[in-house]
C-alpha cells in the first residue's frame, strides 16, 4: 500500500489532494457526502480585509471543457472569517488549511495576513494575486512581477506561516514571475489560477456573465497548466502545488510527474461532489500499478 503523504514547507499532509479555494467553501458543504477530514488540507474561500458581496448573477457559465465563474471573492471579511468561520471549521475539520487572501492594495493583503496568520487552523497562507474577477486588485498584482514581489514581501513581514503564491496564467512571463517570487521569499507556488475566458449568449450575443469575462476552469485547461508546471519546475527550488483541471487520480499523477509536490482540485468537486474521495480511493491502486511506494517520489518524474 503506497504512502500518500507529502510535505509542504515542513508540514506534512496525509495526501497530496487539496481542494482549491473557491471550490470548497469552508468545507461544510461537502459534509453531506464525505468526511472532509479525508483531505490533508484545503484552501478556504478567498478572503479580503473587508466583507465582499461579490459580483451580481449570473456568475456561472458552462462550456465543453468545464466552466467559467465570476463569483468575485464573495466573503465576509478577514475578521469574520477568523472570529466566526474558522472556529466552526475546527469543529468539522482537524487539519490545517490554506488561508487564501486577496486584496486591492498591498496594505489590504498585509492586514488580511495579520488577521489570519495567527489562527491555529491556518497552516499556510495562499496569496491570491490571480483572481480574474475583481477590478483593480487580484490579478493586477499577479501580472506585474514588481507588484507581486511587493505584496509578497509585505505579507512575509507579518507572517509566521509559510506563504504560497497563487499565480495567474495571464502573467506575461510566468517563469520570470515565479523566479522573482522565489527570490523574494515565497515558500511555494500554486500554479495556476483560472484562465480568463468569455461566453456569449447565443440569442443576444451579449456576455453571459455579469462581469463580462470569467475564470475558466476544468479539464479543458489541464494540458495548458501541465505545460506551465513543467516549464517552471526546473527553474525554482520551492514546491509547486499544481492546480488546473485535475479530475482523476491519473491527472494527479500526471501533474505531480510534471513537477507538482501536491495538487489542488476545484471544478471536478463541483461537478461531482464525490470526486475527491474517489481520487483518494484510486491513488493507492495507481501507485501499486506504477510500482511506487511514496507518492512524493512522483514529483518531477518527467525530469528523472
Amino acid at each position, binding site marked *: 500500500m503506497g504512502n500518500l503523504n507529502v510535505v509542504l514547507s515542513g508540514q506534512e499532509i496525509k495526501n497530496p489532494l487539496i481542494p482549491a479555494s*473557491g*471550490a*470548497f*467553501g469552508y468545507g*461544510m*458543504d*461537502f459534509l*453531506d*457526502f464525505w468526511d472532509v477530514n479525508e483531505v490533508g488540507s484545503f484552501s478556504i*474561500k478567498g478572503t479580503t480585509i473587508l466583507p465582499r*458581496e*461579490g459580483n*451580481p*448573477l*449570473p*456568475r*456561472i*457559465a*458552462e*462550456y*465543453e*471543457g*468545464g*466552466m467559467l*465563474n465570476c*463569483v468575485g471573492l*464573495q466573503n*465576509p471579511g478577514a475578521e469574520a472569517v477568523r472570529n466566526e468561520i474558522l472556529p466552526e471549521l475546527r469543529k468539522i475539520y482537524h487539519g490545517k488549511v490554506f488561508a487564501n487572501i486577496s486584496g486591492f492594495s498591498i496594505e489590504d493583503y498585509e492586514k488580511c495576513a495579520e488577521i489570519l496568520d495567527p489562527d491555529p487552523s491556518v497552516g499556510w497562507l495562499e496569496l491570491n494575486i490571480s483572481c480574474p474577477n475583481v477590478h483593480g486588485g487580484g490579478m493586477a498584482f499577479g501580472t506585474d512581477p514588481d507588484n507581486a514581489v511587493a505584496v509578497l514581501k509585505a505579507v512575509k513581514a507579518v507572517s509566521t506561516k509559510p506563504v504560497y503564491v497563487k499565480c495567474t496564467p495571464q502573467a506575461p512571463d510566468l517563469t520570470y514571475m515565479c523566479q522573482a517570487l522565489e527570490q523574494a521569499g515565497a515558500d511555494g507556488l500554486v500554479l495556476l489560477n483560472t484562465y480568463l475566458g468569455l461566453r456569449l449568449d447565443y440569442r443576444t450575443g451579449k456576455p453571459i456573465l455579469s462581469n463580462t469575462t470569467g475564470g475558466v476552469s*476544468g479539464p479543458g485547461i489541464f494540458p495548458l497548466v501541465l505545460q506551465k508546471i513543467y516549464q517552471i519546475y526546473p527553474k525554482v527550488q520551492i514546491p509547486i502545488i499544481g492546480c488546473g483541471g485535475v479530475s482523476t487520480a491519473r491527472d494527479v499523477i500526471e501533474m505531480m510527474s510534471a513537477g507538482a509536490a501536491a495538487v489542488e482540485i476545484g*471544478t471536478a*468537486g*463541483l*461537478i*461531482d*461532489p*464525490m470526486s475527491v474521495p474517489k481520487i483518494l480511493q484510486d491513488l493507492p491502486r495507481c501507485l501499486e500499478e506504477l510500482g511506487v511506494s511514496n507518492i512524493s517520489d512522483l514529483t518531477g518524474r518527467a525530469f528523472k
Partner: protein
Amino acid sequence: MTSLFSLPILSQQRIAPGIYSLELSTEGPFPARPGQFVDLKIPGKMLRRPISITDITEDRLILTYRVAGEGTAILSGMKPGEVLETLGPLGQGFVLPEESSHLLMVGGGIGTPPLIYLAKEALRQGHQVTVLFGFRSPADTLFQEELKAMGVDYHFAYDSEGENVVQLMQRLGLDDLPFFACGPMPMLKALCKAGSSDGQCSLEARMGCGFGACMGCSIKTRNGMQRVCKEGPVFSKEVLLWET
C-alpha cells in the same frame, strides 16, 4: 440527507410546447420536501441541471422541465431505462404554517411544478388551498388534470388574454392570503408588492455545483448574501431585496 442517486427513467413525455414531464424510478419515496430540488447530470454536459420537484410517490420522482438550452434538449431525448445521476434533495423547501389556513399558491410558467407537490402536501396537512397559475396562452397550460384531481380551487391567467397571475389574484380578492410562489422574477416582484406580507418565493439561478460550495448563485438579501441553492431556493418575502 443530500446524496447522489442513480435513478432510471420510467417515462418521459412532452406535456406542452417545450415542456417535458419526466418520471424517475426510486426505491421508496424520494426524501425531498416541497420546494427542494434535484440536480441532474446530463450526459455530455459538465454542470448539472437544477430541476424542481413536481411530485413524489412511493416509487417515483416526478419532474417537469422546460427545454431551455442544449442540456435540457439532451435530457428530453433520453429514453426509459436510461439512468440519470441525480443529486438531491437540495436546498430548503417551502415552510407551511402549523395551523390550518387558507393558502395561496401562485405560479408562472415553468415555475408552477413545485407548487403541485406543495399544494398536495398542504392539503394533506389540512390547509385550504387556492392555486393561481399563469401561462403565456391556453396551449401552454400545465397541470390542469392534476389540479382537478386534487380537488383544489384553481384559476389560470393567460398573457394572451391580457391578464397575469398577480392581476388575477387581485381580481379574485385573494391578496391578503399567505402566498407560496414560483415563477419569473418580474412576476415574483409584482406579487411581493401586491400580495400579502406573508409570502415565500422560490427563485431560479444559474448554478455551479448546486450544493453550496462554489457560491455561484449567491444573492444579496436582508440576511446578507445567501446561496439560492443552499439557503434557498425558497426565501421568505421579507428577506428579498430584488436587486438582481
